[in-house]
């Protein structure tokens, strides 16, 4: 409790540099060692502390997470069928993926489209609403809850029916189009539009990133805005100079995680397409295809190979994301 005044002071202290646009802040060290005196003994005690803090995670990593991961890597070089023992087949699975499987290439295309269209849209939506619902209006917590509700429904089994109530032949979209004299179609069940309804479904469940953005907005010290107002900065300027830079770690987090999660999207296409990625493979997501291969066609070895290729793809994209973040993400712990 004695620390509170200090906190206020230092927070104000950082106000100066943060008001400057983020681009002008110097290139920063991220996870680097901070130079200090009495380095070795302090560093050692810090390392010990770190390992203690990380102990549960280390146990989980070695006992629960890594084992199955390595097992799946091994299985990706076998013909494992789940029902019978595995036999080593070398790189056959990987060869087949890239040379002889048109459906695989199609699933990659479908998923990439889905990720690159829906993630930016969803994040823009979530950030916009988080800003609108942050302050300055009565009943905000009511609105927030309302806008979060779709995300609660998003993964439910009922969504297959509910989505047809919107985009089906008798859905409200067609009713709406009918008023203007257009004859609609079954948007969910037409190969040219099915994927787009899933993209809309993804954007519709923007609740999670919205909440994270809101939490991030709450983390911004209000006195920065005070100081900015005293300096005569307008709303837009405050947004550009305070809100946006201080929110960049959260924007970055949401971007990284949404890319990872969307590449692994499964439930929505599974539930809406009835488990086959149809019509004509137009909603065949990567993980849905993987699931079909592993659990419906009993080619778990092949599915494991698909999983590891996906890991490489997501890993590469995440690495790019991290590299780019040096240029636009601002951390409060940088000096």
């Amino acid at each position, binding site marked *: 409790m004695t620390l509170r005044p200090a906190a206020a002071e230092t927070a104000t202290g950082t106000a100066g540099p943060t008001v400057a646009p983020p681009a002008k802040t110097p290139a920063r060290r991220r996870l680097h060692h901070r130079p200090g005196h009495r380095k070795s003994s302090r560093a050692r005690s810090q390392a010990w502390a770190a390992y203690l803090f990380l102990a549960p995670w280390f146990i989980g990593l*070695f*006992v*629960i997470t*890594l*084992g*199955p991961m*390595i*097992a799946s*890597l*091994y*299985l990706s*070089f076998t013909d494992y*069928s*789940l*029902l*019978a023992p595995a036999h*080593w087949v070398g790189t056959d699975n990987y060869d087949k993926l890239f040379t002889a499987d048109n459906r695989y290439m199609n699933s990659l295309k479908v998923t990439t489209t889905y990720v690159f269209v829906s993630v930016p849209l969803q994040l823009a939506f979530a950030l916009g609403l988080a800003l609108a619902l942050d302050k300055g209006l009565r009943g905000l917590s009511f609105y927030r809850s309302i806008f979060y509700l779709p995300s609660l429904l998003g993964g439910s089994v009922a969504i297959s029916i509910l989505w*047809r109530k919107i985009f*089906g*032949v008798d859905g409200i979209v067609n009713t709406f189009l009918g008023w203007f004299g257009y004859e609609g*179609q*079954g948007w*969910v*069940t*037409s*190969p040219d539009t099915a994927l787009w309804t899933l993209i809309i479904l993804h954007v519709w469940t923007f609740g999670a990133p919205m909440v994270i953005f809101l939490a991030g907005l709450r983390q911004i010290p209000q006195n920065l805005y005070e100081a900015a107002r005293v300096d005569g900065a307008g709303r837009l300027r405050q947004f550009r100079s305070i809100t946006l830079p201080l929110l960049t770690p959260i924007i970055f987090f949401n971007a990284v995680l949404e890319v990872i999660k969307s590449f692994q999207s499964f439930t929505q296409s*599974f539930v809406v397409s*009835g*488990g*086959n990625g*149809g*019509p*004509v*493979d137009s909603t065949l997501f990567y993980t849905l295809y993987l*699931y*079909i291969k592993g*659990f*419906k*066609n*009993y*080619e*778990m070895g092949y599915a494991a190979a698909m999983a590891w290729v996906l890991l490489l793809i997501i890993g590469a994209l995440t690495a790019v994301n991290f590299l780019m973040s040096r240029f636009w993400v601002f951390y409060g712990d940088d000096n």
Partner: protein
Amino acid sequence: MKRILAAAAVTAIALSATACGSGDDDSGGKTKIVFSYWGSDSRQKLTESAIAAFEQKNPTIDVEGDFSDWDSYYEKLATKTAAGDAPDVMSIEIRGLAEYAGRGVLAELNGKVDTAGLDQGVLKAGQVGGKQYAIPTGVNAFPMIVNKKTLEKYGEKAPDDKTWTWDDYIAMSQKVTEKSGGDVWGTEYNENPAFLQIFAAQRGEQYYADGKVALSEQTIKDWWALIKKIIDTKAGPGADEMLETGTKPDQALVATNKSAFGSWWSNQLDTLTKGSGQELDLLRMPKAPGATTSGMFLQPAMYYTISSKSEESAAAGKFVDFLVNDPDAGAILLSDRGLPTNAKVVTAIKGKLSPADQKVLAFMDAIKGDLSPISIPPKGAMEMEDILKRATDSVLFGKASPDQAAKTFLSEADSALSQ
């Protein structure tokens, strides 16, 4: 590389499984068996009471029901099998039979279950490579369902199902659509392989033979042409509308009184009737001109099987025997898993069946003399329904020409079945 990975995988798993517990906990000297099945809450209730009846008759055996919804059933079953935890008694349907039997998951049932009282023709559908691996729970046919009231309302008379042709069917449906002014479709259709199987059987072709697809390219294309004609003449709705309800009997167009005809499995008549609230009847499928058979066939609704790893296969056999042969079990389960094939059971439960099921029973009796043989899908056939669906949809949505699609279908089928 191979060795290192394998060793790492083994140690990793061994590490996580530090305390290797013993799996068998004998609860008071009782033999415990696990029975896995899928379905909805109503089936769960019936099954639980059948289990209770069995336990009463066999107080030393304890049966645990392992129930799951259909969408996740096989995934769960496969995972358990992989872990050596396969349930003692497993429900399986026809597409999975060759897969599971072929990979050594299922035990041979000779001597474990008394099959003498069952319909021997249907029983053959539980054999793989001449050995009995599975006992059919009951049978279904794939008939045309008709709402006669809707037909009459739009001035059509119910057809004579012994003589009607595909053209009659389409023409009649088209008139219904036309006269209703678009309120009602003449017919809905279904991409179910059973439909194609009947269509092919009328031309003397089998779906599968010698572990391969035996359909000719022309037959597949003609079948698509038939569906296209339904769409083009407005006898039935477009493909997008059809896909919305195509596999769900409770939302089917016949179940919501939006069409006069529809083709469904016979055990779905009850659901369809409940949805529609009107009288629905069963008809033989229309024939191709000059066909000598209607192509109708009986297919096991599902099977009971026993795991080859089961340590209690005697108790498991007893349980399966009870389910298919004991009139008490029949009186509880009724037609939930298809109509029983044990004549003794059928007589015992006849009076208890719902009016819809009575109709199914009468219908099956009527077509008895005109049945095509059942063709059991070979190993790899789990994928076949989706392969057909994909090819069919690509034709209906104009994504591929029938020629291309038929070739794709046959080559994809070949590679799926050759694994």
